[in-house]
């Protein structure tokens, strides 16, 4: 596995940790954040942040992986 892919997978794990495996710990109403019950706020927050995690994954692959000639723009 190339180095960039390894880091990319690390960033790819972010939504799985935050939106799946942490759910048992955030299943509560209080405190309200931005008017939303806590569990809903948590989900919205990490759905909104996932693009940043994937962007980081994308950058890692670009930076460390060998360019792929088939991927011509």
């Amino acid at each position, binding site marked *: 596995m190339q180095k960039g*892919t390894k880091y*990319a*997978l690390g960033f*790819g794990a972010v*939504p*799985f940790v935050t*939106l*799946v*495996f942490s*759910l*048992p710990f955030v*299943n*509560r*109403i209080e405190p*309200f954040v*931005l*008017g*939303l*019950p806590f*569990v*809903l706020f948590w*989900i*919205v927050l*990490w*759905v*909104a942040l*996932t*693009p940043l*995690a*994937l*962007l980081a*994954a*994308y950058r890692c*692959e670009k930076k460390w992986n060998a360019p*792929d000639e*088939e*991927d*011509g*723009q």
Partner: protein
Amino acid sequence: MNIALAIILGVVLFSSFLGVFAGTRRKMDLETWTVGGRRFGVILIWLLMAGEIYTTFTFLGASGWAYSRGAPAYYIMIYGTLAYTISFFILPAIWRIGKKHGLHTQPDFFIARYGSRYLGVFVAIIGVLFIIPYLQLQLKGLGLIVTEASNHAIGFNTAIVIAFLLTCLFVFTSGIRGSAWVSIIKDIMMLLSVGIVGFGVPYIYFGGVGNMFQALAAQRPAHLIFPGATANMDVLWVMSTVLLTGAGFFMWPNIFATAFSAKSADTIKRNAVIMPLYQLPILLLLLVGFTALMAIPGLKDGDFAFLSIVNKAYPQWFMGFVGAAGAVTAMVPASILVLFASTLLAKNVYQTGINPRASDQMVVRLSRFMVVVIMAAGLLFAILLPNVLVNLLLIGYNGVSQFCPGVVLGLYWKRIHARAVFAGIITGLSVVAILAFGKHDPFLGLNAGFVALIANFTVTILTAWIFPGPGNRDGRRWPAVARAA
């Protein structure tokens, strides 16, 4: 004719002409028909995927689930996000293989990987079996939305017959490109309706989103956390469901094939990066459902929460706008579903299974013909036998997810072979059917499809391990292609 109906008809006609226009003056060969000539950039791929993701289920179902089930509806925001994350990693590999071998459909992928025509035909038939109920669901959703929005100025059957004819028309002339273009109108109108209603309704009834949640928390606090108003959809159910649906999302034959439409692997990755943002509007649909629960309690069917509250809080012309948005929101996914069901039958059942010497032009001609046949089947089921396919629909997502081990292990594991995939899929489907029809879903708090997927993975891996097979037909080349991902 009332103003709402006029708006709906106007939008639906305009969209269909745009769809027809998208494909005129293009020679329709197999590449153009199914995968848009493999030339779609980030914007068209976005439109295509968005077109398939926001269906009438999202439109009516998300607010309906929030209304009648409460917190379990949150899963709808999560699973898409997981699906795009998975797609970032596996779709580029699928794209490379598709490009290298000139693949058009999901069964093509299985045939290329495992060298088994039987497996290809099998996967194609299972795919079609799960697509048709979804097609019927779209038509039914369209009928409900249009009759409700036009205040019954047009009947259920008339509405879906008109939609059937127009959808057939633009699929027939433009193939996949027509769906992507109509998706432009659909996305704009749907986001506008969802935005206006989602922000508007909590303000109209409670003076703001915060106040609305405070009121709901005081009235029914349990509604806002898992398991909501349900008895068996607790945290464990949500976790297993988002993992299953996240993994199963790209296993739908129609969504799988979007990988082949992209012009490069890079397009797919960049698309995966931005797609999760598209999940955020679902929050607004949840807000509508929660508001409706307090503003108009006691609806018999929660799926009407969205339409009922719009009907109450907004003028008639806006109801027409929402109706039109709902109609195109049904037509775009319906067009893509019917396109792929017909291509699966023509390419992977007829060409692969019955007459391998059929030319690609012949396959396109047959696909076009099958579009009409399959749409007609969906229409007949929707009008005459609305409940026959309910069972298939119930297991649709759980069913297609069973393709997952064959695809993912096939990409990265040399030892896996056709017989192992057969054994896995049959095990998975059997477990799904037994649990779902025996009313054991959720099973021990877990989504039944998730249980089936675990069984499927186990059987696939064990079979491949214990009985070494011929491996992949493509010898050394295949793993190299996948590893480049």
